[in-house]
């Protein structure tokens, strides 16, 4: 058994037993916090797919997260008020069924990722970082000034999604559902990166001109990865809307993109598991430190700097004794 297997097994064991342990410890609220961590983990893993394997540093990932959340929010809003959705043909009044909401959230996020990615991938490096940021900011300001869906106030989700036979209001069931989705998404992304498609992607990261010379249509490969990542973030957004019972433009703000990026790098990029650790570390530190002192950022800030300086390969790399992305 190597170190990586141990880390994975221990992690899985903790995640699988967490609600039971929390209950036994008389801290049932831990389950709710953990659900939030797992939701952000899905978003972080999706970003890692393009960031860690395709070297596409998207600084606008929160846009897709927000879109996923808004799809759920808007559909629920219409279903709750029995109003027809004005910008769609026909007189569909939305739905609260998860089987409709969630796939639609994923698809819509993917569609936006397709358009944004198609335009952004014309640029490279820092320019790519900034153009993805620009698109996310445009969406942010759009949602702020759209009074129909609450503008800056956002929308309250009056009812969580319906997913029989599960009860999403039950913290434990919700947790296990999110956990299952995270594991499924991790499985999917692992298959992707180890497939031929993933090889091409990694090839682009190392030397795109060479991949082009070898005859690969790298633009299409990268765009596909970008869209998949957007869809993953969309799913996370849909879950986050259910978890918070609220959607708002704050979900799309650039600082949110920054936070998701921090989770990936903190945990160890190009590792897929690392971002899960990163999400847990960042969110739990916020939780613990803000209870401890009003000036908690003065601790978190230097911590992040130190991680970058001394913990190359992130937390996952430190735990498993590996560096960035050597697989």
């Amino acid at each position: 058994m190597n170190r990586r297997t141990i880390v994975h097994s221990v992690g899985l064991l903790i995640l699988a037993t967490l609600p039971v342990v929390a209950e036994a410890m008389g801290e049932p609220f831990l389950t709710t916090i953990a659900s939030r961590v797992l939701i952000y983990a899905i978003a972080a893993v999706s970003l890692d797919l393009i960031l860690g394997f395709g070297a596409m540093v998207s600084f606008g990932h929160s846009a897709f997260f927000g879109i996923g959340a808004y799809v759920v929010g808007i559909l629920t809003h219409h279903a709750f008020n029995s109003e027809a959705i004005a910008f769609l043909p026909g007189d569909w009044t939305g739905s609260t069924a998860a089987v409709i909401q969630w796939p639609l959230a994923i698809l819509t996020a993917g569609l936006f990722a397709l358009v944004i990615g198609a335009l952004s991938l014309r640029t490279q490096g820092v320019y790519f970082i900034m153009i993805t940021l620009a698109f996310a900011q445009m969406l942010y300001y759009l949602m702020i000034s759209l009074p129909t869906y609450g503008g800056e106030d956002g929308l309250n989700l009056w009812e969580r999604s319906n997913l029989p036979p599960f009860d999403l209001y039950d913290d434990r069931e919700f947790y296990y559902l999110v956990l299952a989705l995270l594991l499924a998404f991790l499985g999917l992304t692992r298959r992707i990166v180890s497939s031929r498609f993933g090889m091409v992607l990694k090839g682009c990261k190392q030397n795109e001109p060479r991949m082009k010379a070898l005859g690969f249509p790298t633009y299409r490969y990268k765009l596909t990865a970008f869209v998949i990542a957007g869809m993953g973030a969309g799913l996370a957004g849909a879950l986050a809307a259910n978890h918070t019972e609220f959607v708002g433009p704050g979900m799309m703000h650039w600082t949110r993109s920054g936070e998701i990026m921090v989770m990936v790098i903190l945990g160890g990029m190009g590792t897929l598991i690392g971002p899960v650790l990163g999400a847990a570390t960042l969110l739990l530190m916020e939780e613990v430190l803000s209870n401890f002192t009003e000036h908690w950022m003065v601790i978190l800030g230097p911590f992040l700097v130190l991680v970058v300086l001394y913990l190359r390969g992130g937390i996952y790399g430190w735990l498993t004794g590996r560096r960035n992305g050597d697989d």
Partner: protein
Amino acid sequence: MTLVLFLEQTLNGLQQGVMLFLLAAGLTLVFGIMHLINLAHGSLYMVGAYVTASVTLASGNFAIGVLAGMAAAGATGVVIELLALRRLYARDHLDQVLATFGVILTVNELTKIIWGPQALFLSTPTWLSGTIEIIPGAPYPAYRLFIIAVGLLVGIVLRHLIVNTRLGMLIRAGATHREMVGAMGVDIDRLFTVVFGIGAMLAGLAGAMAGPMLAIEVGMGEKILILTFVVIIIGGIGSVRGALVGALLVGVVDTYGRAFLPMIMRTFFEPSTADSVGASLSSMSIYVLMAVVLIWRPRGLFQAYGG
């Protein structure tokens, strides 16, 4: 809309652009030469504003305050460079983003601990208050004219520095042939520290200039940071000329957007909708500008150095 109003808005755009240039010049140099994405550039701007306000209040002299603000921002920059950023030049952009994000949180919180959560006060110096009718019929704030003058002066000095001095030559060389400069016996580490310090001082100057006009508060740096990035991306990374053109472009587009879009919208919609739609479009205008420029020229208008 009258011609006077149009000219006045152009002047406003110019002034906003000049302000952005002060920030963008330092950022683009650091970016171009050290390949460092410094999200904490806005924090140096904030330090400049806070120290300028405190020193001006204590000494009663704005000029002393500005010098102190520049010095403080420069010193803070050098300290951050020596302690942390120095080790990041060779790393990829992501590590830099994470580390400088950490620096933002730290500097913001320290500022709040030192000066408290409430905004600080700095008034316009008496010799710069009042208005001047530079365009007949539109009295223009003297202080804004002063900012334009300072910005243009800095532009000229920077140009002289880069074109005519040994330091400038090293900066130009460092941007394109870093290894070669090192191989020829130049102390690259010191060059980087000096350039970073200059950039930080310019950010401090921008903060000092902003003080009498804006709320001096924690978070003021992040508000302008993104705009500054937009500027250097449009202008092309590493190019001071690009930063100037980009800054003026962003300043003018943003100002025209805010000034005229609601008016234009009123020809299409009823007034209250028009105001709201116009406002939404104008908040997006500079991001649209950046997206369009990048789709047209993926490396900005003046490319001094490739991504």
